[in-house]
């Protein structure tokens, strides 16, 4: 095996299963510039003719192109140099529309589900009477399907079409199929059941924003477009598909089309939740878990990835109505008390407090003290203090003093409080601004603030000391 020159091709092929598996090979896809150009040209060709490409390969190509657009955007092709950041978003949008539509007759896309079911039947048959694990069975099914696609690709077009027709006709009828045991079990596939091609593409759109490496100091580019996002919104607004099942293979994502679309939308556009119809938003808010730290199968739980994105969106979204805000507050308060629920309350309530929900003030004080050591404290405390300066300026100075004392009592650094006051100095108005400036000036002269370089830089920048301010 080690001496074979096609090792990369073999392993790549094996990883082309819908889900997160293609991600594991990303590193080896970027050995040199020439190789990337070849792979990009091939990936673009595949995306332009998706009906003849297996779903797993399409998903792998999406993830590859997204990472390539971030790592090496300019690619020299035969037709000239292209900028992937400009080319790829439109290709993705067209691809999604193609996959949403009914596949052309007599294409691989039209027969893919049936062929996969034939493969699943074969694996099931040869593993009897002792049987094999679900995971092994699925793995062999998908590998057999990949082998089958390779064989079909060697045939001339007419023979290929005829071969696919004949094999597909041998797929078991729905009523003859066993209940699907897994999200990636072909017995559960079908355009009116779980559309694996659409699901694979949506999954890839969701996962692609998570996998490509952050390159420090570079400006990043969204690989998205209005057309793509509008289609995702439409898909995410579809009626719920019932309970979502998981997979033994590397799926690691929601198991329904609307949830997959929502996750992809939120990853591409953080404020995308607000773009959904109000009814859909409300449904998702209602589906927030009751006991986030416990696995309660009776709950129709939203996948955690969606919950996190949804809650962050709620904090940033202008489109959320007052009624929805009240519903979110109620859902979060009704959650079983746990570390996760308090963490969510802290983040979301800070955002809602900034939008005028003054009633959250005292609850937030406690939550801030509890999360004094969190890495998010630097950003959130500024938002809290800015809101406090606006909503309760008469208590501003004393609340800051109490926060400092509470942080110190808890053994946490109170420095973030001073940095948060800086935000009030920058964005505050009127009395709140003056109060923050006075408080920061005073704090900066006391320990531990007077020994902290960041605080001293801040007060100089804000002109709160007599020397060092740049005129």
């Amino acid at each position, binding site marked *: 095996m080690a001496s074979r020159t096609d090792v990369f091709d073999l392993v790549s092929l094996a990883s082309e299963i819908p889900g997160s598996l293609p991600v594991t090979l990303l590193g080896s896809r970027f050995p040199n510039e020439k190789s990337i150009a070849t792979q990009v040209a091939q990936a673009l060709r595949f995306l332009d003719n998706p009906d003849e490409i297996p779903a797993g390969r399409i998903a792998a190509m999406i993830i590859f192109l997204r990472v390539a657009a971030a790592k090496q955007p300019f690619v020299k092709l035969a037709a000239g140099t292209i*900028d992937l*950041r*400009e080319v790829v*978003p439109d290709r993705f949008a067209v691809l999604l529309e193609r996959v949403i539509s009914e596949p052309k007759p007599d294409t691989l896309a039209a027969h893919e589900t049936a062929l996969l079911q034939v493969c699943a039947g074969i694996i099931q048959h040869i593993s009897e009477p002792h049987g094999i694990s679900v995971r092994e069975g699925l793995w062999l099914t998908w590998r057999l399907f990949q082998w089958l696609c390779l064989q079909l690709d060697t045939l001339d077009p007419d023979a290929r079409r005829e071969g696919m027709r004949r094999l597909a006709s041998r797929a078991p009828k729905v009523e003859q199929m066993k209940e699907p045991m897994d999200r990636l079990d072909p017995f559960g596939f079908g355009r009116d059941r779980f559309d694996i091609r659409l699901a694979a593409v949506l999954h890839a759109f969701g996962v692609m924003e998570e996998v490509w490496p952050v390159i*420090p*100091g*570079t*400006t*990043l*580019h*969204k*690989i*998205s477009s209005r057309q793509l996002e509008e289609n995702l919104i439409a898909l995410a607004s579809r009626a719920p598909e019932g309970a979502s099942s998981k997979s033994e293979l590397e799926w690691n994502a929601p198991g329904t089309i609307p949830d997959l679309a929502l996750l992809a939308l939120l990853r591409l556009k*953080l404020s995308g939740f607000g773009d959904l119809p109000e009814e859909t938003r409300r449904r998702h808010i209602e589906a927030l878990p009751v006991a986030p730290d416990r696995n309660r199968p009776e709950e129709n739980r939203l996948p955690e990835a969606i919950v996190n994105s949804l809650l962050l969106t709620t904090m940033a979204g202008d489109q959320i109505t007052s009624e929805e805000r009240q519903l979110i507050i109620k859902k979060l308060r009704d959650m079983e008390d746990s570390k996760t629920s308090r963490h969510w309350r802290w983040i979301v309530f800070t955002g809602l407090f900034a939008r005028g929900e003054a009633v959250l003030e005292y609850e937030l004080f406690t939550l801030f003290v509890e999360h004094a050591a969190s890495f998010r404290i*630097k*950003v959130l405390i*500024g938002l809290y203090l800015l809101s406090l300066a606006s909503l309760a300026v008469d208590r501003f100075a004393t609340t800051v003093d109490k926060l400092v004392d509470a942080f110190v009592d808890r053994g946490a650094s109170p420095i973030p409080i001073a*940095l*948060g006051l*800086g*935000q009030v*100095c*920058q*964005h505050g108005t009127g009395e709140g601004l003056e109060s923050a400036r006075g408080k920061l000036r005073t704090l900066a002269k006391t320990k531990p603030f007077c020994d902290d*370089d*960041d*605080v001293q*830089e*801040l007060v100089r*920048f*804000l*002109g709160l000391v007599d020397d060092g301010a*740049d005129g």
Partner: protein
Amino acid sequence: MAPMDERTVRIHVFASVKGGVGKSSLAIACAKLVVLAGRKPVLIDGDMMGTSIADGLKLCAPKVELTNEGNLKLLAPPTGEFYTLEETRRLRAKRRDGKRDVAQLPPVFLNDILDHFDDGFADGREVEIPRVDGLLWRHEQDDGVLYLPSSALRRDVAESLGWIRIHPDDRFDGWVHCLAWTLEALLSLRRDLTDIVIDLPPGTVGLTHQMLLLLSSLAAKKLPKGYPVWNTEAIHWRLNPFLVSSDDRNDLLPALEYIGQNKTRREISPLGLLVNRVRIGTDIDALKEISRDMLGPALGVLGIERDMKLVEEHRETLGAMFRKGDLVVDKKVEALSAILGVDERIS
């Protein structure tokens, strides 16, 4: 001068830390969008450091009465006529090659108007208001924008640099003082004027900062003595100032610092940060994150970048404006209207 009728005047100001970031292009786009909104703008080319919008755009100079010696008569009423582009080019060349002691040859530039005021203030006499309404240029296509370009000729640039001196009130320099009176002349002679678009020189110290201070004082109705009497209710000023930056770190960091410090000191009206010519699809959240990182742990939490707006590359329109001599207002340029706040009520 007679008191003015009550009116609202929007002032859109474009400043930058460094040159070459597309500040003039955005100022021109802004003026064109004001026309599209049904209002009347004048575009003042205050970037007097060696380039001129008159050279970049196909602008025709106004015909101005001349003295027997061939000098511009700035006090003469408007002729209502314009030179052709070719005539304007020839006059520019003649002015370029004229003897240094021959002053104020056509075509007329902003420099001549400032010079007029400067000479008068220097002599300590009451300055006669020039007929600025007859000194405004127009585009070959007559696009509805009134233009007041500066001169890119070496002799004019050298002279304008000499105006940078401290005014007796210790707040604004001579250049700014003269420009303030130019604005006064414009507003009193062109009652149809609704918007003033000013393209400032690059750099946030000196002229640009002084001009922003002046405009902020104007909006706050706190002008010092010696300035036009705008401290009345006659004009409702709507100030819309921008700092234009690229997404280069050496440009963006000082831009953020300038905006942050001035917002804190509240001497000048809050500036909008426009990051220009960014690649299509640039993620604004990523750029904000980089901004916070550049500012460091102490200042990165201040949220200075909060109101940053991105202007995507417009290679076919904004980017080609000075090659083609005009800006075609296509749908993409129209979309800038919201970013530039052309239609908003601005305070």
